[in-house]
């Protein structure tokens, strides 16, 4: 059982410590929101296993009553992805390092502003500002509120109307503190009408720091808002040290004729909780969510997706493929809601898993809730092992058993990886997979 009171008491102390260091900024608009979010968190319990969506994630392993806020840090070094030319945005211990943001991004026309600056724009015409206020004042999810209460100033990335960005944006997220700590990255991406952008989120360790493997939790929140006819490709790559956990939430809102494709690859970390919520607010949208993951040791990977089809003629696809080995566990809980107005919806959901050890565990639950009558929807799940005939074929050609197994594991995940954009990143992930043979 989770000791809610003990945790809230601890968080209260962390919050007061944070306030004491605000140094004159205590009255800022942002801090007002911090306080409101913390008050909301007090009355919102952290979920436990009785909560259907949290049955397979032991929250007590995620939220320790020992966490302090990870300190701000300017020194970082994240290994370059060979041949990847991208606009970099570093996020260290939850702090967006604005000085480290690629200057070329600005000259390409992208507007990057601190969250507090955007939130102070009171004009109702400013979509980002209006949207931020709505999001931050209506959430009732404990981990979201935790982020809103403790984040150290997020960033708003605005892709102007009709701009097609030539290179991907690479958001580099690291958690690096000598103490047991948590950090709360927060970013909003606003793709204006007709714009196109590829966003890479890299969760990796600080390759030069001795503290890079300290215990910690990254509680990240990402928001992507697609205006009319915008296109966003999103790839999240996670290879954290095995001492760190990640609670990740991506909320997507799509306007008419927009296209959103998301790919998630999880290899590292301890407990990984992924939530993707997609709101299809208007018609004729396209959404694709795909993931490939390999869980070993005692890792726990939990994927939760929710796609809300509210309007007609929207199409959504989900393909989640995972390998669960050793004592690891995995969960997939995919929900697709088709509302009464969402006629001509086309929704497809698939979760395939290889469970490679008798101590490994997978829980798969694809769900459709359909309230319209003229729709095309399907869902499915498979659980299996490596194919013995294929293993024999490879070994009969002189390939040793361990390599043969690795080839088949990589082949299983290749379906998702081959679909992902940005070739240098695909190659990087492939070579990382090779180390896991």
């Amino acid at each position, binding site marked *: 059982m989770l000791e809610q009171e003990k945790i809230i008491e601890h968080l209260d102390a962390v919050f007061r410590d944070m306030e004491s260091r605000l140094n004159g900024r205590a009255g800022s608009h942002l801090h007002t929101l911090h306080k409101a979010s913390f008050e909301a968190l007090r009355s919102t319990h952290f979920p436990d296993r009785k909560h259907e969506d949290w049955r397979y994630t032991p929250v007590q392993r995620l939220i320790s009553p020992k966490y302090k806020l990870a300190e701000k840090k300017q020194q970082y070094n994240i290994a370059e992805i060979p041949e990847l030319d991208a606009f970099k945005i570093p996020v260290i211990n939850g702090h967006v390092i604005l000085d480290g943001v690629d200057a070329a991004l600005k000259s390409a026309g992208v507007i990057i502003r601190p969250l507090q600056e955007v939130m102070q724009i009171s004009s109702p015409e400013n979509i980002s500002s209006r949207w931020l206020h709505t999001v931050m004042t209506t959430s009732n999810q404990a981990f979201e509120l935790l982020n809103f209460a403790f984040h150290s100033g997020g960033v708003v990335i605005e892709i102007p109307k009709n701009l097609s960005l030539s290179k991907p944006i690479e958001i580099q997220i690291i958690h690096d503190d000598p103490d047991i700590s948590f950090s709360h990255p927060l970013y909003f991406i606003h793709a204006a009408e007709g714009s196109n952008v590829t966003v890479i989120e890299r969760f990796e360790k600080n390759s030069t720091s001795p503290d890079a493997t300290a215990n910690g939790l990254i509680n990240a929140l990402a928001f992507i808002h697609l205006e009319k006819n915008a296109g966003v490709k999103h790839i999240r790559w996670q290879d954290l040290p095995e001492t760190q956990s990640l609670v990740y939430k991506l909320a997507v809102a799509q306007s008419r004729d927009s296209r959103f494709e998301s790919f998630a690859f999880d290899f590292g970390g301890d407990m990984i909780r992924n939530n993707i919520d997609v709101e299809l607010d208007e018609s004729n949208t396209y959404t694709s969510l795909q993931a490939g993951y390999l869980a070993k040791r005692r890792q726990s990977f939990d994927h939760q997706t929710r796609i809300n089809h509210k309007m007609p003629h929207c199409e959504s696809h989900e393909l989640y493929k995972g390998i669960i080995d050793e004592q690891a566990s995995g969960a997939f809980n995919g929900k697709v809601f088709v509302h009464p107005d969402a006629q001509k919806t086309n929704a497809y959901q698939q979760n395939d898993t290889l469970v490679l050890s008798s101590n490994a565990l997978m829980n798969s639950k694809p769900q459709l809730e359909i309230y319209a009558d003229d729709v095309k929807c399907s869902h499915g799940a498979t659980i299996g092992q490596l194919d013995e005939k294929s293993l024999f074929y490879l070994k009969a*050609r002189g*390939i*040793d058993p361990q390599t043969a197994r690795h080839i088949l594991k990589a*082949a299983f995940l290749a379906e998702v990886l081959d679909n992902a954009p940005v070739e240098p990143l695909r190659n990087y992930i492939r070579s990382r997979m090779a180390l896991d043979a």
Partner: protein
Amino acid sequence: MKPLIKITDLHVSIDGKPILNGLNLTVNKGEVHAIMGPNGSGKSTLANVLAGREEYTIESGTVEYEGEDLLSMDIDKRALAGIFLAFQYPVEIPGVSNSNFLKSIINAKRKYQGLPELNALEMLKFIRAKLNAIEMDESLLKRSLNDGFSGGEKKRNEILQMTLLEPKLAILDETDSGLDIDALRIVAEGVNQLRSPERSFIVVTHYQRLLNHIIPDFVHVLSNGKILATGDRTLAEKLEVEGYDWIKESNTVTA
């Protein structure tokens, strides 16, 4: 001369059902042996047991390969030691590119031989040279291993692998099944190009027609898990005309 492989009184079963019942076969270097026989006689079992397929149970008997106990060798070690099975039904593996697979098997063998791995360019050159010999389209390299290949393309891909690995003992398991006459000719030519005094073949087939292209030194007739007759290529021709019934009725024949 010491035989390349010597099978002595081999008894094999699957799920408790006996398949091979005291099979004896000796193959010397450079020889081509055809194994013929009706369906269910144990031809494919013999081929698969030699390659190391795990579903079979060895009840008794021995197999000596280059003087070593073959039955105690791991599957991959048998391949590295020079045994190649051309599969009757090559496995489709989506997600593994054919070219990467070929690179892996070539480098696995080179590593075993203590040779340096080939780089990408050397590899491509090496594979291309062999492709032409069996009239195989280079586009098949980019596709997933055997995935969606036609029957003929799969068998050609088997022969390509055999050509690349240069085995000491090649076992062809009904390589002719499902092939049209042109594909059969190309596959047979691929095999004939590899014939050498240093290389032996066991050609398992149901029909005589493959043996018009690959001329065997010996023809064995397998029935009920035993070799009942051994002869030269004329035995195959006799089987084509008279069928298998005459052998079943008589006892062991040496033609």
